[in-house]
């Protein structure tokens, strides 16, 4: 094991639990897709921080069912939140993932 007891504890240097590493890897697999990255970027750079499925489909040039499929994957991992208002589905970045997504797309 690699640990030096004489060093000052640093919160960032806590060893990573296997389950945490798996969780992060799962999120990275969700993010490692060009369409989903474009969707996140469009949501992030929108004025209100919210974009409809239709707007995303138009901007990326895919059909709505394709975008809906990718949105489902992002929502399942908790990166994106979905809200239905009227006949529109709006997507926004989950507030606890905003920093991570913003840094990623820097």
């Amino acid at each position, binding site marked *: *094991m690699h640990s030096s007891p004489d060093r000052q504890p640093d919160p960032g240097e806590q060893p990573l639990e*296997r389950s945490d590493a798996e969780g992060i890897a799962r999120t990275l697999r969700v*993010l490692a897709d060009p369409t989903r990255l*474009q969707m996140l970027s469009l949501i992030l*750079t929108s004025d209100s921080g919210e974009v409809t499925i239709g707007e995303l489909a138009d901007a990326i040039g895919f059909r709505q069912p394709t975008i809906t499929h990718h949105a489902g994957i992002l929502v399942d991992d908790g990166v994106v939140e979905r809200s239905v208002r009227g006949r529109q589905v709006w997507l926004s970045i989950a507030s606890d993932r905003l*920093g*991570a997504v913003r*840094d*990623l797309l*820097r």
Partner: protein
Amino acid sequence: MRHAPTTAAPPIDAVGARSLATRLAAVADPVAVALLRRLVIASGRPVADADLHDGVEASAEEIDDRISAMVRVGLILPSPGLRHRAAPDAIITLATVLGVAADTPAPRDELPPALRRTAELLTTRFASIFSEETVRRYVIESYRLLAERATVTAHLPTLAGRFATERLGALASAQGLTLATTPEVLFVCTRNAARSQIAAASLRHLGGAGVHVRTAGTTPAARIDPLIERVLTEAGIPLPAEFPKPLTDEAVRAADFVITMGCGDACPVYPGRRYLDWPVDDPAGRTIEEVRRVRDQIIGRVASLADELGIARPASATR
């Protein structure tokens, strides 16, 4: 790439998204996550491969395989002596996802007051390029980097602020986010206390606003040698508010010219930069006559470099 400072960045295009997806795929696995996290925590300092093997539960083949995959996409960089380090881009873009940096910025009260002020100033200054979290992370990290080596801690927050400013500036130019119309020159020596300081002061004096000069040391001293200040003043060269600081990856990436003096091997090599090694003796512990000789030698080389860079040399351009 030109980046208008007042408008928000446009959304990523299909090509950019594909390339980012490829990079992320290389780390989308628990072993790769554990490895990259270790390197990001080391914030750009090289970690021995043996330590990476010790600290991550996986077979040696698996670890080597993940390291190679991340090297291929530029997330980590090989370092001399069987070591690897995180690329600056990886530190900036992935620290939060990897759980190294808090997703929500730490409350302002957690920083010492002097550092808090520094972070606020830099956040404003880099508002068009970096998020508040990134700036704060750099300020804290720079403070830690300097604190590890410091013998005198009185001015650390101020020095950390300057160091963080330089690193963020270098990172921005390395990523093409600022308009780099002026050449960037980096002088590196071992202690960053004498040779690199003489060279930087002379080039700033000659080039004024026409050149951007940075310095670093591979094993930085506690302070600039007092004799250096004296021999520069004799030559009519003002010594700017400088301090010895460690060599960072961003500084090298940002530089068009990297000039090493007595430390060529320790300097990371990137394509597209011009590397020059000046064989100049370290004046540490020498007599004033010898220090003057070193000074004149360096001033001569700097003058040729300024000519080569085509830098205008009006005396009024100096600060």
